[in-house]
């Protein structure tokens, strides 16, 4: 065969392509022999490998735990939006259908906002509801998923409000105060 010159890179890539396959076939005894031929210790190889893999598993677990915690925070915010809308509607003593008609939004969307914590309301609906209830700018938008990052303080206040809410037909004066304070908080918080 003609002695064509290949680059080191080409040689390396071709030969590397079958390393894994042949090493995978080796028996335990041969692996130990190969390691010792390299001046290595088989037990040390096991430990290094375990450390690399365990470390990666732990790192991803931490990343996923953080993501789950963030997701739980988002669910709380969505829940509060739904409950806040219910409270605002009850304050006016109107039904979902009446609200939909007056705010010129879809009644199905009103129901989804109030009851489905996975539902992301459309920006138009949020704006229409803010206009109808004469709320300060972006009060509902802050709870709607339009804002991706919330401060820790914001999250805390939302969680506190969620803990204090109750579902009843008419708002008591205490709940009216709670509602007004929370709307005030939302209007001030950046």
């Amino acid at each position, binding site marked *: *065969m003609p002695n064509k010159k290949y680059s080191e890179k080409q040689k390396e890539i071709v*030969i590397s392509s079958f390393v894994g396959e042949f090493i995978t076939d080796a028996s335990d005894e041969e692996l130990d022999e190969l390691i010792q031929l390299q001046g290595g210790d088989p037990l040390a190889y096991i430990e290094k490998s375990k450390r690399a893999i365990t470390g990666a598993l732990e790192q991803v677990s931490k990343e996923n735990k953080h993501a789950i915690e963030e997701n739980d925070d988002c669910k709380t915010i969505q829940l509060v939006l739904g409950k806040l809308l219910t409270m605002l509607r009850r304050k006016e003593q109107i039904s979902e259908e009446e609200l939909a008609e007056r705010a010129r939004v879809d009644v199905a969307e009103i129901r989804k906002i109030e009851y489905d914590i996975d539902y992301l309301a459309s920006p138009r609906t949020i704006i229409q509801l803010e206009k109808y209830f004469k709320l300060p700018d972006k009060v509902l938008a802050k709870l709607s998923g339009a804002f991706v990052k919330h401060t820790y303080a914001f999250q805390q206040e939302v969680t506190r409000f969620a803990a204090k809410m109750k579902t009843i037909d008419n708002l008591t004066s205490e709940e009216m105060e709670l509602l007004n304070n929370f709307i005030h908080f939302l209007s001030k918080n950046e």
Partner: protein
Amino acid sequence: MNKIHDDPDAEKYASMIEVRKALNNLTDVEYKKLMIIAEFYWTRRNLQALWGDAEDLLHEAVLSTLRSDKPKRWRRGVSIIKHLDQAMRNISGHWVRKGCNETEGIEKLYEEKTEENLVVAQLVAKETLEIIKNFFNGDEIAFQVLECRRLKGMVESEVRQELGIGHTEYETICKRIRRKLLKFKNQEVSNAK
């Protein structure tokens, strides 16, 4: 509206639960194999110029498999060892090109046309054979075993039948191939591109 969608690739790729299970169930033999392979790429590709060691390469290969946002997913039907071998090969090649061990842009590795895939594709089969033959330097039977396995996709029984060799001779040849590969690992690495 915001529901998690079913994984459209569930039939082709293992789930994260399956990946974790496979990693947690690795045997000592498999740990050794993975570290030998990691060291091969680390040494052969002169990555010791970077901080860290071969362990970091294996760590990165496992991370890339586990992270759902940067998928190098484990394809069903492929052993976890083979999968991690492929991942380490790709990652080490990326590090060589970048001159660092960051993995920014590493998702591009897993597109079809990686640089390595292109090199192999550009080398026609005949040239690939030539490189392998030169590598074995006169060890004709070893070359034929490799040709049957890698280029013809044969399994052991088919190779032995094709070449007319028994199990013991086949094992001896494979041992010789492995020793030669590890010797190649330690050969002086040229800086030629």
